[in-house]
């Protein structure tokens, strides 16, 4: 049983051990990467070491989780919600790097720094998931985002990648302005940036007389909505996802979204439960619009990466339903959902990499036609991912339960969100139209005569794709253990909420 007193710097750094290991390790890798002439072999070495480093960090997290680490209320949280999301983020990191190793070979990219940047971005995400202070939220988001801006444009030969990077950067910086203004106004209204302290000041009774607080919450919500790509703040998503290198796209779709959602959950659960009446309307509409628009626009997409981009928007909508539910079940549903979604989405992008040709060609739906006849296992894995995203039981593995829990959370809310639940089910019925289009193309269309011969699937992609599919299927049949874990990972998020512990005196003085 570890317990940290976060007001002591030494103990604070111990509580941040995983982040420290990851960041310091990344810096060491940077030294290796920068040492001497850059070569393909060196880049691969760095990539491998980055995977090892992520695994070490995961081991540390698991160790700290198992040893029941606790902490006094402070600037960061030490709870299982953090550990759980960190693990998801690190899984996404490992998948990204593994896919990146293959991708670099296909596209003939040599950039060892890419892997270091991925690690540093992940460190930023992990800080974000642990942040219990709005300034930490801001810095975590920025660390993550700036690294991802760079990663999107890391393929210097590609004009599309540069454009994706620019669009993401400009709009991201723009949204950061709103986020920061929101933080400023919340600070101005409550005199603190500490979530628990804010939570004590934000009560349903006084919220009406605090317009500054309301405006602050609104702008903070805008900042988060941009990061999770909620409609109407989603418009960068398809362009950036299409233009960015595919492993980075997968990283954005999974890890960035997971981290931003984790922060959104924590902030909303710890700081603003008292303002439910104020934010409910806006979040409700965000969730509804995101589900509807994301799903409908996805129907007409022919480029797989764009289709998956709209799909990721739609899934952000489903997750927003869990935010609106604003209960413990919602947070548990989020953890389950985000793992299922991460595996399915990243696996799908892995298949896209395996099917694609150098120069990011052959990413149209038609290029998947008849995949079953040439790569049956790849097609089967892709079918699992599509069905998981669709939320189909058994064959879609965890995807079904993911949606199920979100629905449950929505109906379990204090005021059951029946409307959103119905909308969720309806829009996911709609989503069959585009997910099944992929399945149909793979299994029921002949391979076009001029389709290029597929490259052999390389080991990292192979491992990533099949491991994801197997995990999805396994937890789809036996979700029990994992859901228990997810549910138990929730309560501590509110352990430091106003009623449970006195406001901390750490911040804002």
């Amino acid at each position, binding site marked *: 049983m570890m317990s940290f007193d976060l007001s002591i710097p030494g103990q604070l750094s111990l509580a941040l051990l995983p982040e420290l290991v990851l960041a310091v390790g990344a810096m060491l890798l940077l030294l290796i990467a920068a040492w001497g002439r850059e070569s393909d072999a060196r880049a691969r070495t760095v990539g491998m070491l980055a995977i090892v480093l992520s695994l070490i960090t995961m081991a540390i997290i698991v160790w700290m989780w198992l040893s029941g680490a606790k902490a006094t209320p402070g600037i960061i949280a030490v709870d299982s919600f953090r550990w759980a999301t960190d693990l998801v983020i690190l899984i996404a990191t490992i998948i990204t790097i593994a896919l990146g190793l293959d991708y670099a070979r296909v596209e003939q990219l040599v950039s060892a720094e890419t892997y270091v940047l991925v690690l540093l971005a992940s460190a930023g995400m992990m800080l974000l998931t642990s942040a219990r202070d709005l300034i930490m939220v801001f810095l975590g988001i920025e660390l993550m985002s700036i690294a991802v801006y760079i990663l999107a444009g*890391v393929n210097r030969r590609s004009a599309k990648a540069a454009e994706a990077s620019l669009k993401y950067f400009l709009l991201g910086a723009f949204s950061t302005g709103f986020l920061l203004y929101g933080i400023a106004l919340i600070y101005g209204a409550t005199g603190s940036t500490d979530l628990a302290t804010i939570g004590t000041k934000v009560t349903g009774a006084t919220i009406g007389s605090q317009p500054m607080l309301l405006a602050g919450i609104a702008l903070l919500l805008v900042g988060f909505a941009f990061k999770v790509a909620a409609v109407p703040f989603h418009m960068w998503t398809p362009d950036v996802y299409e233009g960015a290198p595919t492993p980075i796209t997968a990283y954005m779709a999974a890890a960035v979204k997971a981290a931003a959602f984790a922060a959104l959950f924590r902030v909303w659960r710890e700081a603003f439960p008292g303002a439910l009446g104020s934010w409910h309307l806006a979040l409700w509409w965000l969730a509804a619009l995101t589900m509807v628009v994301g799903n409908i626009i996805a129907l007409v997409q022919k480029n797989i990466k764009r289709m998956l981009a709209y799909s990721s928007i739609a899934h952000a909508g489903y997750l927003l339903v869990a935010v609106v539910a604003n209960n413990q079940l919602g947070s548990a549903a989020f953890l389950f959902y985000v793992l299922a979604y991460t595996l399915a989405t990243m696996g799908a992008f892995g298949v896209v990499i395996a099917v694609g040709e150098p120069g990011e060609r052959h990413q149209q739906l038609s290029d998947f036609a008849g995949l079953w006849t040439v790569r049956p296992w790849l097609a089967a894995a892709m079918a699992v991912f599509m069905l998981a995203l669709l939320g189909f039981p058994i064959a879609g593995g965890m995807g079904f339960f993911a949606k199920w829990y979100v629905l449950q959370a929505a109906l379990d809310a204090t005021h059951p969100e029946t409307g959103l639940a119905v909308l969720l089910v309806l829009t996911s019925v709609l989503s069959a139209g585009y997910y099944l289009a992929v399945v149909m193309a793979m299994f029921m269309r002949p391979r076009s005569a001029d389709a290029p011969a597929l490259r052999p699937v390389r080991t990292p992609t192979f491992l990533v794709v099949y491991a994801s599919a197997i995990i999805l299927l396994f937890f789809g049949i036996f979700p029990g253990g994992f859901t228990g874990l997810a549910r138990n990972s929730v309560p501590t998020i509110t352990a430091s909420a106003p009623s449970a512990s006195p406001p901390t005196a750490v911040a804002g003085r």
Partner: protein
Amino acid sequence: MPNGFVYEFLFYLFGLTAIVSAAIFVTRRNAVAAALWLVNTMFCLAALYIMMDAQFVGAIQVLVYAGAIMVVFLFVVMLLNLGLPPSVADIKSKGARIIALVAGLAMLAELLVLARQKLPAELPWLPRETSVTTPITEPLFRTYLLPFEITSVLLLVAIVGAVVLAKRRS
């Protein structure tokens, strides 16, 4: 020192100058001119900071923002040779500008509810003999030590990123 007529006059003067400079900055067709007007805004802001008992931040504002960041901007503008031809202005059409202005005014109107917020009383001014850095050091290196360290990682990422992106195409 504060709260005399001169103080208030100067406060409004700097504030309005900042706003007017910003407005001019937004409307200049020439990128170099625009950047210089933005520098002017930042100087005015620095003055406001100092007048609000944040002398250290005011100094940083001049050094870092107006001095370093804006110089880099100007440098890039010059490097890409964007300063000169005003004929190919990159500003949008008049209609677009008017609609943007309307949106801006709407946003301002929504933000004006802030005026209804009751704020606590202002803190007393620091005694004149205090060093201007003292009030900042305590929170910066104690309470916010962790965020402070994170900014160092952030800058490292920025450096690596700039190098990666600006390298010649292989």
